[in-house]
């Protein structure tokens, strides 16, 4: 350890100022480790996973227990979990079996339903964003269209089905239309809000740069409103999934909605319960998917 010289006023400071700057040598780069041993890092990660996964698992087990106890008397109206497992094992264990044209696994049925959702929701997303941007930007479009939208959006999806069947005369496009008309409203409304919330400063920049309408739409409006748009899309995808299951109950076909209705007509309650579980899980995954796409597209930028 060097001992520091005692500073005297004048003499020593003068000497320092007359010293040459030290010769430059390239710095040595030393990689830093986090300092934690692997075992500890692994333990921390495991703990984080456990904290998220174990509480819902415990609650699930408790709920199953309550369900089992509530309906275990003979002659109970609903089957118990154990009964469901016994009678519908094949459905639970193999989602993708194919025993015949009408006897396919629930996984296949879900995919058929998802295909219709993809068409209907895809259409709703594109048209919804465009119309929402129009309402958000133009006061007169808002005054003209908004009251009509507010009335139409309260009509439940199934109420659209008869009109849709009469218009399209075929169950496939009718189902897609029902999905479209159900899921478009949150997309329109949220997009309009997002567009209205574009900060005046961004509009001023667009004005100073003299951006034309198309440039403004793609470079400023869509990125600025993106968090709101994706909120609308998330709500929309949830509603689409609700709508397709309901629509399929009435229109038939191969989807999972029709499977529930058919199982009800054949009094196969365990099958219905398994189908419900599938529907819930797929709905959850769809929401997570749209949310993940949203955070990638918006690159984590929060709504302004």
């Amino acid at each position, binding site marked *: 350890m060097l001992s520091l010289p005692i500073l005297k006023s004048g003499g020593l400071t003068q000497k320092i100022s007359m010293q040459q700057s030290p010769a430059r040598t390239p710095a040595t780069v030393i990689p830093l480790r986090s300092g934690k041993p692997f075992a500890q890092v692994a333990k921390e990660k495991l703990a984080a996973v456990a904290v998220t996964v174990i509480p819902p698992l415990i609650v699930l087990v408790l709920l199953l227990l309550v369900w089992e106890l509530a309906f275990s008397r003979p002659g109970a109206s609903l089957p118990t979990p154990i009964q469901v497992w016994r009678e519908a094992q094949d459905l639970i264990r193999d989602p993708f079996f194919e025993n015949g044209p009408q006897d396919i696994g629930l996984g296949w049925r879900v995919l058929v339903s998802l295909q219709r959702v993809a068409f209907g929701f895809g259409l709703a997303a594109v048209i919804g964003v465009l119309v929402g941007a129009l309402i958000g930007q133009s006061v007169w479009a808002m005054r003209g269209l908004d009251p009509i939208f507010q009335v139409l959006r309260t009509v439940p999806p199934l109420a659209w089905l008869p009109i849709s069947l009469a218009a399209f005369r075929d169950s496939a496009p009718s189902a897609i239309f029902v999905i479209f008309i159900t899921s478009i409203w949150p997309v329109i409304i949220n997009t309009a809000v997002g567009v209205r919330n574009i900060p005046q400063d961004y509009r001023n920049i667009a004005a*100073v740069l003299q951006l034309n309408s198309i440039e403004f739409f793609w470079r400023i409006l869509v990125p600025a409103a993106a968090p709101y748009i994706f909120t609308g899309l998330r709500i929309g995808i949830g509603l689409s999934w609700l709508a397709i299951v309901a629509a399929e109950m009435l229109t038939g076909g191969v989807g999972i909605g029709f499977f529930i209705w058919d199982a009800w007509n054949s009094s196969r309650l365990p099958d219905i319960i398994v189908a419900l579980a599938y529907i819930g899980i797929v709905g959850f995954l769809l929401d997570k998917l749209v949310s993940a796409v949203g955070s990638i597209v918006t*690159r984590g930028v929060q709504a302004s």
Partner: protein
Amino acid sequence: MANNSYLKLEQIGKSFSRGAATTEVLRDISMVINEGEYVSIIGHSGCGKSTLLNIIAGLTQVTTGAVILEEREVNSPGPERAVVFQNHSLLPWLTVYENVALAVNKVFANKKSRAERHEWIEHNLQLVHMLHAKDKRPAEISGGMKQRVGIARGLAMEPKILLLDEPFGALDALTRAHLQDSIMEIHMKLGNTMVMITHDVDEAILLSDRVVMMTNGPAATIGEILDVKLARPRRRLELVNNKTYTEARSAVLEFLYARHKAPTIAA
């Protein structure tokens, strides 16, 4: 910057009306700004300084009068009157480089090649000492750095006039001092015309060639224009005891706090 950037404000008046009520914000503002000048506009809050700047920028329309740039009337925004906003207003989904590129690619789409534009963007970022952070997003840089990028974006448009709306108002005192020095350095290097709004007397006198003092609203107008006859380059530490500086400072303070006091809030 060899263009003739002669800016004339002719009897500008601005009133806002909502329903039946009309408020006259600006009245009879007339002045001439010469090429290469640095002009500050100072006044109490609510006297219409930002409105005046927005009128020069073309973001607000005049009610009476006209803004004349190089013998032609201007009443809509454009990149030849670039604006640096108080809130930097960088687009948060673009990096620093992309924010400046947005302006450059739009303004110089047909006039410079892609390579030239890239070089020009980097040149402007280097001017404000932000080239090292060109791939960062606005959320990852400090307020002072964001404001620098805002200035780089304004300069990159090669404007005839650079309009600055309280550019350093949202920053702490130390950063403000650094940025004031930066902008003086840029002004000396480029010789462009700058119009700045501020409510900081020291900043106005340090940076400008002329200080325009506005009276209080409503119907605010130009009270006085002070010529700041200090040689450039100006260093703040040297100016502290400079007679011209202190006289200019008292003149402005006297205008603002004695003759045109801020209207007191009614009890």
